[in-house]
């Protein structure tokens, strides 16, 4: 043992100038709001500054550059400064009663902290914030519904970015939570961006409240955590990572027999993560959150904020990995994996029947985040229960943890891209519908054609209205294709490497150590096949076959700005193999391994060998092939047979997609089990899936019937009993006489009263003076 966990905890001392990564977007928030209020409607503001889009852009670019500098420093470990505390938030005292009664001083500080978990998420956050800013300029500013409202969007957008970057960089659990809530606020505001839509207002409230339930547990968990580490942090910050991760502190805690209490605190904090990352049973808010504009869905509800819960759990890794806590937290690790497994499978099932393009992606997000939770659960179990000093345990732990984080990276890139691509589809569908509508009604409806095209009955998000878009939206279709492949885990593409790692490690724990893990292990394995189905279903329904509506025929890519982030992210999603060759899973799990130490080819061969030949453990090799079969063959083929089809005559997709379209057409012709699918869809199970397994219904019912009912009862109790009976009936009726006297001198004139007071005071003063 000894050195290994210390290396895990090795963090860079960050010069506090890097606080500008957070501060720049935070300061841009009031600036954009102010400029918007002042210049809305003016041409320069609208055309040249894109109503704030081009104010936000350089800010986000600066944040990205600063982040990259910081990441570079971390990798190279060049600069070391001895302070990272930016300012002291609260100082206070604590009273300990015991053998020696004493008062000690504490503080809660804000500072910056960068380690191997941070750098990856820091890159993901700042990189995607910039790309989605670019996308937003194309998406938001070309829709006249948003005219003169975009400043609000960009202001809330930059505030969100500062929250996300702040959460990643902060050096204590408290400030992690503070920025976490700031993101929650922005999420609320942006989901409710179209505030006059009742559904958006409802969705915003639902999102905030559901995550708030988790946050309450998180904040209680923090209170518990502070109390646990308080004895070892005299004069300092008991919630700082430096204190909480410190081996000697943890050792003292273990010696005091507080392992159970620590597990409880971490468990409470995990409930917060469940809410934020939309996991069972607090998952209900995420699909509704798609009411927000698509860039918001891409950034907040797919690529960054929902990762906050994962980040929080990943942050606990050094505590789990500490030798002082060895074997103590296996229950919590199992619960984390189990919640992940259940959510993964449940969300994938619900995604089967969604017709709304964004909702499919939302459930897919939920399911993939659940994968990461399962992976983290397995990694934390390994970290907690294995003796790091024995070969090859250290490597196993590091790879397991790295795989979960690597999946976070792959998922963020792919899902951010998928959402932007879906936004592109929706946007172009809108445009096409708008043009068509305009054309048809040119004579009689000229005035109000564009007033509010959210109100007409055409659903631009429904896949039932799409079809055959592969040739009409080549860039978007490619992005969707690659993104879906990455999420499904098609071999050699992005998500494959990490997903295989997660499945393998969960099985490893189940087979070799803790049989309870068979449940999540089995769930994530079958979910791999289900992912293959619903992602393929989405792609083929949207892009293959014949256009299902007139609108879909007219669609073509025309909006500027939108393709840029797609083109950037396509290689990022494909590049999984490059990162895998760099042994990034080792790096992410453990700072001791450097990126690119061995050279790309060597790394590539190592990874290929590791995944496909796997000399050590036979069952993992079998597992790999089962997973590949399920996700690459069974799922997509079923989807192709059901929803595939050739494009229109004369339409041809790009060659890298055309083969899939053609194949789907063949499969569709040959094995269409549409009758069976229809029967399934009409069954009660199909209905239950469409109703999202009734969670929303029962939660709403509980809220409306129990909570609202009880509160109304309390309100009337307060009015009729506490006030009505006790005060009005007993005291007031009993006090009629005194009130009558007061009423008789209540002349109603302010002058009289003031005179009375003055005279009375004077009289008392004279009287007392006389007595004196």
């Amino acid at each position, binding site marked *: 043992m000894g050195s290994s966990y210390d290396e895990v905890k090795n963090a860079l001392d960050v010069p506090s100038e890097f606080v500008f990564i957070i501060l720049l977007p935070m300061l841009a928030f009031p600036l954009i709001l102010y400029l918007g209020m002042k210049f809305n409607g003016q041409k320069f503001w609208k055309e040249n500054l894109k109503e704030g889009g081009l104010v936000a852009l350089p800010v986000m670019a600066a944040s990205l550059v600063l982040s990259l500098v910081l990441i570079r420093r971390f990798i190279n470990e060049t600069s070391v400064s001895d302070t990272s505390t930016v300012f002291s938030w609260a100082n206070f005292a604590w009273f300990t009663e015991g053998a020696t009664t004493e008062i000690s001083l504490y503080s809660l500080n804000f500072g910056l902290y960068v380690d191997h978990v941070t750098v990856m998420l820091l890159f993901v956050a700042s990189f995607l914030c910039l790309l989605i800013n670019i996308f937003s300029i194309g998406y938001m500013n070309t829709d006249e519904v948003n005219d003169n409202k975009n400043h609000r969007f960009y202001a809330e957008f930059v505030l969100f970015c500062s929250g996300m970057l702040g959460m990643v960089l902060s050096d204590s659990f408290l400030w992690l939570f503070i920025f976490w809530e700031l993101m929650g606020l922005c999420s609320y505001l942006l989901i*409710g961006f179209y505030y006059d839509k*009742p559904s958006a207002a409802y969705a915003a409230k639902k999102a905030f409240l559901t995550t708030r339930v988790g946050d309450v547990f998180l904040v209680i968990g923090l209170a518990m955590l502070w109390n646990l580490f308080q004895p070892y942090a005299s004069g300092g910050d008991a919630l700082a990572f430096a204190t909480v991760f410190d081996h000697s502190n943890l050792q003292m805690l273990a010696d005091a027999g507080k392992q159970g209490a620590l597990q409880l605190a971490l468990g409470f904090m995990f409930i917060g993560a469940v809410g934020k990352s939309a996991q069972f049973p607090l998952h209900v808010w995420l699909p509704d959150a798609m009411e927000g504009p698509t860039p918001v869905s891409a950034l907040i509800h797919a690529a960054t904020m929902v990762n906050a819960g994962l980040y929080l759990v990943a942050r606990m890794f050094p505590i789990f990995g500490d030798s002082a806590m060895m074997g103590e937290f296996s229950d919590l690790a199992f619960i984390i994996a189990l919640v992940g497994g259940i959510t993964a499978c449940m969300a994938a099932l619900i995604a089967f029947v969604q017709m709304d393009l964004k909702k499919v992606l939302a459930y897919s997000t939920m399911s993939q985040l659940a994968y990461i939770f399962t992976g983290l659960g397995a990694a934390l179990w390994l970290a907690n229960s294995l003796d790091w000093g024995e070969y090859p345990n250290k490597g196993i732990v590091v790879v397991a943890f790295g795989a979960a984080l690597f999946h976070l990276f792959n998922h963020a890139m792919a899902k951010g891209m998928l959402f932007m691509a879906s936004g592109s589809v929706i946007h172009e569908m809108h445009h096409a519908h708008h043009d068509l509508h305009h054309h048809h009604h040119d004579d009689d409806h000229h005035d109000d054609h564009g007033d509010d095209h959210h109100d007409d009955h055409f659903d631009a998000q429904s896949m039932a209205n799409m079809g055959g878009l592969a040739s009409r939206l080549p860039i978007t279709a490619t992005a969707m294709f690659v993104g879906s492949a990455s999420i499904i885990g098609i071999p050699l593409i992005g998500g494959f490497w990490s997903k295989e790692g997660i499945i393998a490690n969960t099985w490893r724990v189940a087979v070799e150590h803790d049989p309870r893990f068979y449940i999540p292990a089995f769930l994530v394995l079958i979910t791999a096949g289900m992912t293959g189905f619903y992602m393929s279903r989405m792609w083929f329904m949207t892009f293959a076959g014949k256009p299902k509506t007139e609108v879909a025929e007219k669609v073509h890519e025309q909006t500027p700005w939108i393709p840029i982030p797609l083109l950037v992210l396509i290689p990022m999603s494909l590049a999984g193999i490059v990162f895998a060759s760099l042994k990034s899973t080792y790096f992410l799990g453990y700072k001791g391994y450097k990126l690119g130490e061995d050279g790309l080819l060597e790394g590539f061969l190592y990874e290929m060998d590791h995944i496909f030949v796997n000399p050590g453990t036979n069952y993992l090799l079998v597992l790999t092939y089962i997973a590949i079969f399920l996700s690459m063959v069974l799922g997509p083929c079923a989807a192709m047979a059901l929803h595939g089809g050739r494009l229109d005559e004369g339409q041809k997709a790009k060659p890298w997609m055309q083969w899939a379209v053609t194949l789907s057409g063949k499969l569709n012709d040959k094995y269409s089990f549409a009758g069976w699918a229809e029967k399934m869809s009409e069954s009660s199970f199909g209905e239950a899936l469409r109703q999202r397994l009734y969670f929303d219904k029962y939660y709403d019912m509980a809220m409306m019937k129990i909570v609202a009912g009880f509160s109304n009862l309390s309100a009337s109790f307060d009015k009729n009993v506490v006030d009505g009976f006790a005060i009005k009936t007993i005291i007031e009726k009993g006090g009629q006489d005194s009130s009558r006297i007061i009423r008789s001198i209540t002349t109603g004139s*302010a002058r009289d009263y003031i005179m009375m007071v003055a005279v009375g005071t004077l009289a008392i003063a004279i009287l007392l003076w006389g007595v004196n």
Partner: protein
Amino acid sequence: MLDDFDVITLILLLFPFLMSIVMLTITGMVSESSRRKLAPVWRMVSLGVSMALFIVASMMFTGQIGGVDWTGIGFNEYEFLYQYEWISSLGITWQVGLDALSFPMVWLTTFLLPVTIIATWDEKKGAVYHPLILLMGATLLGVFVSLDLFMFYIFWELTLIPMFFLILKWGGKDRKYASQKFFIYTFTASVIMLLGLITMYFSMPSNTEIAMDNAGEYTGRTFDLLEITSIAQSVNAGGIWLENLHLIIFAMLMIGFLVKLPAAPFHTWLPDAHVQAPTGGSMLLAGVMLKMGAYGMFRIPATLFPHALEHFQFILMLFGFVSLVYGAIVCLGQTNLKKMVAYSSVSHMGVILLGIASMQPIGWAAALFMMFAHGIISPMLFAVCGAFKHHYHSMEIGAMRGMAKHSPWLATSMMFGWMASLGLPLLAGFVAEFLLLIAYWHEFGWWILGPGLALAITAAYYLWSMQRTIFEGGEETQPPKEMEGKPIPDISDMEKVAMLILAGFTILFGIFPAIALDMMSDWTVTMFQTLFGGA
């Protein structure tokens, strides 16, 4: 610069007092028509006086006046102490001074006065209204600066008078009932408190037993709080001061303060008073007047009877617990916007009680910070309610939807205030809540689920009310009937200024709570050490 300027406390108190009396007297003497002309003048004078107070108080805060380092003040040490012999026969002195408990409240009062005047710039009968607000502020300052129990009680009751008139003259439909209920309810409680004070006065040892500087010539006892505190401390060091009576006196005093706070089940005067009170009255009532209860608890019973505090710790916690949780649940059942905000005050005052009951310096500091933070946030809530009523002629939640469209400023202010009140981090309210939870978990363990539940419910009622005011308002919801055909106005420029000031300070104390928290925390430490003998 003005290093030895102790008399400033006295000036701080008397200047607004006399100015408002002069203005009210002149108003009373002139005719109806000249009153109308007088209104803008008195408004400017009131604003000027209150601004001057605010500037002086802020300069005292930064140390430019008096050169005080507020973080260095220990328990029972006072700055700007000014003593004048008043009624020596009974041991009553005119004694004013400031410490880290009272000074934040004094600063808060001087801060809220100009903000209130600005927020209710166009209130009717301005020639009386604005001086009355100033008078209200003066009496509140009196409560916080006086260090003589007799004086304290006089100012304590004097605060009722301007507030009574504010509710009675500028209130809503049921103002008569509400103002009388407010007056009688709190007055009755204060009388019990007074009886407690008198019992204490006569049961304490006389100057024949203990040496006293300010003992009354006839009674041989004193109302001088500093002196009583030192006596109590010296007795408490080896035993219990007023051993056979301390629990009863403590309980009597606490009744007065609990009603003022108010804690459930003594809270029912508050919603009535708030709903009927004019905006300015509500702002001062929620902002400062409620804190008199918490201030009093720290100043008198906790200071003098620490053993009784320990004895009643659990009961106090229960009062706080019920106020917090029950208050929040009742909030959720309200349909009237202002009533909801009023009940939210009950709920937040519960946090203060929990802080006191936690018996930790940090819990006490959290309670002090809650008094301060709620004093900035709740006026904003009531200013929003006032503007809502003013523009939409209704207080019902759901009467007016889609405010974000019609009145973006009001909608933004509302959302800001609501978010601050539900404890969003980076805003002032969160600081107190978080520090409290730390102390609360330590002291009461799983009882923490109650405050946790309250946190969630608080979010629920605020979000639910925002959903039906700020949001929605598409086609299916219309503005209230009276509003039809009229343009829907946003808040006035003066109201905007007031909202911006309140919001700015909420953010300032949320991100840098240490500005105010440091002095509170240092003071509570020395208080704790003195009372409970920590090393």
